[in-house]
Each structure stands twice: as structure tokens, then as C-alpha cells.
């Protein structure tokens, strides 16, 4: 299977502080990759270094066989991105934001179809800032899907979504994945990771403490539930200290 995302030994520090240590991943076409870790573990930094919005100190990245900085124009025709704090203008409406985003791409999806699919069609004339948290989150996923991407980056995919909306989003993403979409996501919901991700990587203070499948993560831990295993990986040190 084709390797869509390749990051090799990415390093990044802010001053003295090392925030990403030798981050290495490979994501194959049509699979979903989950990047996990506590707040401040370096997930967003990793995504930003991969996308080129932050410059890694060293290491190599290729997405769809292209360099995110030198092939920016060509690469980002095919990449959808949902940032953690989504950025939009004051007073802009849902329809205006979608139309503007769609105008940036040579071949964009019809925003109305996506708004309908994500149940926010009726909000198209509302200002974005008046949407509820969950509606806004769904809008940001819509924006990430507008380019008809081959690969999509979702930073904290389902934050703010209620249980039903979350399941619906998972369903849509799973079916897109079956059609060949490659997904790179970060999440704090272990249920979501189990439902969507083929491979995961757990970060702790910028270091990769686990890399493999969800079931491997459970097997290599003393626990039977993924959430407990995850906590064991991220809090190992504290447990050791308390013993």
C-alpha cells in the first residue's frame, strides 16, 4: 500500500526546551492514524511541523510524495486541514466562509452538500460566531473536506460534539476512508480512536512512547481496556514515582 504521509526524525525545540524528539511516522493510503497524548505533549507541534506552518529543526517530511514547504501550492490542493483553533473573520457567515474556502481550490466540493451531510445546512446564513460549539466543530470538518482531499488532518476532531454527532462524524469519516481517504487525527476520546484509527502513536513530552495498533497497545500494557492502557503509557512515570 502506498505511503501517503512520511515523517522521519522530526526534532523541534523552543529555546532550551525540546518539544518534539525524533518524531517518525508513516501513514498508508486509506488508513487512519491517531496521534495521542496529554495536553502539551506536542501533538499540535507535530502536525504543524508536518504541514510546514512551523519549521522543524531537523528531519524530513513528505506528504503525497511532496515537500510541504517547497511544493506548497500543488500539495495543498489535495490536503484538508482542520486546526484546533479555527480561524475565521468576525461577522463572516457560514455560507461566505464556505464559498471563500471553496474558491481557493481548483476542484472543490459543493459546500452545500457537505453542510447537509453534517446537519448544518440550516445554519448557512448564520454568522459563524453564533454557532454552538458542536455546530462550529462540524463546520470546521466541512471546511477540511471542501478541497476533496486525498489526505485530511484533524486536530482534536470531536471536541465539543455530542455523542450522536460524534458517531455520525465517525460514520462519515469511515466511509470516506473506505473510498481511499487518508486520515491523520489527534483526539482525547479513546472510543473515537478505537472506532477510527488503524495505527496510533502516543506522545509524552514530545517523545514517542508507543507506536503500533490499538490492540498492540493494549497487549503491551498490563490492562485490558484501551483507555487504561493509554493512561498507563502517558502516566507511567507518575505511577513509578508513587511506588
Amino acid at each position, binding site marked *: 500500500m502506498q505511503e501517503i504521509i512520511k515523517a522521519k526524525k522530526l526534532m523541534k525545540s523552543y529555546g532550551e526546551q525540546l518539544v518534539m524528539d525524533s518524531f517518525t511516522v508513516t501513514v498508508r493510503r486509506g488508513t487512519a492514524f491517531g496521534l495521542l497524548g496529554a495536553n502539551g505533549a506536542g501533538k499540535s507541534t507535530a502536525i504543524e511541523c508536518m504541514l510546514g*506552518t512551523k519549521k522543524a529543526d531537523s528531519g524530513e517530511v513528505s506528504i503525497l510524495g511532496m515537500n510541504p514547504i517547497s511544493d*506548497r*501550492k500543488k500539495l495543498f490542493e489535495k*490536503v484538508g486541514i482542520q486546526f484546533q483553533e479555527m*480561524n475565521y473573520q468576525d461577522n463572516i457567515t457560514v455560507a461566505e466562509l464556505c464559498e471563500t474556502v471553496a474558491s481557493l*481550490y481548483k476542484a472543490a466540493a459543493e459546500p452545500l452538500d457537505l453542510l447537509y451531510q453534517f446537519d448544518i445546512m440550516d445554519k448557512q446564513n448564520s454568522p459563524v460566531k453564533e454557532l454552538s460549539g458542536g455546530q462550529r466543530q462540524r463546520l470546521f470538518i466541512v471546511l477540511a473536506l471542501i478541497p476533496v482531499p486525498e489526505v485530511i488532518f484533524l486536530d482534536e476532531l470531536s471536541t465539543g460534539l455530542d455523542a450522536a454527532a460524534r458517531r455520525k462524524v465517525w460514520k462519515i469519516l469511515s466511509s470516506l476512508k473506505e473510498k481511499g481517504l487518508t486520515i491523520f487525527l489527534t483526539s482525547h476520546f479513546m472510543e473515537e480512536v478505537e472506532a477510527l484509527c488503524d495505527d496510533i502513536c502516543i506522545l509524552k513530552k514530545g517523545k514517542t512512547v508507543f507506536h503500533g495498533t490499538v490492540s498492540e497497545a493494549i497487549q503491551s500494557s498490563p490492562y485490558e481496556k484501551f483507555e487504561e492502557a493509554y493512561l498507563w503509557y502517558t502516566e507511567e512515570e507518575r505511577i513509578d514515582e508513587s511506588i
Partner: protein
Amino acid sequence: MKAFRTMLKTEGKLSLRGMDMFLFAICMPLVVLVILGILYGNRSAFEGADYTFLEQSFGALSTIAVCAGGVMGLPLVISDYRSKGILKRYQVTPVNPAMILVVQVTIYMLYAFSSLVLLYTTAVIFFGMQFRGSYACFLGGYLFVMISMFSIGMMVGGIAPNTKIASIIASILYFPMLIFSGATIPYEVMPVTLRTVVDILPLTQGIKLLKAASLGLPISGMIVPIIVMITITVMCSAISLKYFKWE
């Protein structure tokens, strides 16, 4: 082009929705023109002058919109879009992030030209103004003043660390220039000592240029204003190109 058109349409709508540029760049110059027109009417600019006071002030009034857009609007919108991460967001699209800056500059140019047309029509129809200079010279000078003012705005917006500082710098530049450069209060009614002081404001020089162009006065006295404006434009553009921060 599709991206530029759509962005221009959306950003234009957002700017009008904000109302402040409509007030400061379209309404305010018109109000000042009407007040000066009523106060001084067709009175001669000075004894023996062959043009009226209003004709003399037209060049100055036409820069109010340029000043509002370039020194107030532009820096605020750039620093706001940076702090919201909108500039950064464009880095991960196929479009060059500079496009959104070009769109904003275009919007403020449109405000300035709309204001110019509105002022000209009002002055000609209601106050019998005669345009004595060359239209080509005036438009060239107007564009030149605009580029110069916008380069100041680009620099402030490009390097101010946050929206708050950008708005403080913008206010420090905008209000003195608006009041003392002759844009609202005519340079001619200022005491001589004050004139010497306000001569350091770049807009004062720009207004001298436009005044000469609109009245058809000889270009020979305009060397100093032209040099001042070119220096400012080059300096500010160089600083913004070198130090512009996208996030």
C-alpha cells in the same frame, strides 16, 4: 482569479458590515467638504488668488479616505487577521497568503476612489468647484500618495506584535495626520509656526502635491514633497518586506 474575486467580494462585504470604514473614509470627508463649502463658499483662497478656498482644499479632503484606509484600516485588519491565525491558515492552501493582503489593499483603494468620486461630484454640483489642474497629474499624484500611506499601514500591521499595539500605533499616526496635515483643517488657516511643525508629517507633503496638481500650479516647488514621499514609501516597504510576521 476566482479566489481573488471571491475573497474580494467576501472581505468587501465584511468591511462594509463593520461600518467604521464607511464612516471614516466615505462619510467623514463628505461632511468636512460640506462644512468648508458652507463656511467659505466661493470665497477666494486669498486676496488676489484666481481659485476659491474650496478648490484649494479639494486635494487635502481627498486624502482623508486614503489616510483612514492606509493608516487605520490596513494595520488593524492585518494585525487582527494575524492574531486570529487567518494569515497562517492561508499557508496551508494552494493560494499564496499574500493574496489576502492584496485583497485588503484593493478594498482600501476602492474606498479611497469612491470617496474621491463622491467629493468631486458634490463639490462640482453643489459648490461650483472648477478643477483647474490636469486630471492625469492629479490621479497620478493621488495614487502616489495612496501607495505611500498604504506602505506605512503595511509596515505597522506587518510588524506590530499584537492587535492592541497595532491600534495604538495606528491612532498615534492617524489622528495627528488627520487633524494637522491639512486633510481636515486647512493648512492655509494654520499659524506659520504650526505649519513648520506639521511639515514633517508625510501626508502634509502629499497634500501639497495634490493641491498643486488640482490647481494646476507649477510642479517646480514640488521636489521636496516628492522626495519625502518616495523616501517614506521605500523605507516602509523595505521594513515590511523584511520583518513582516505571518503569525
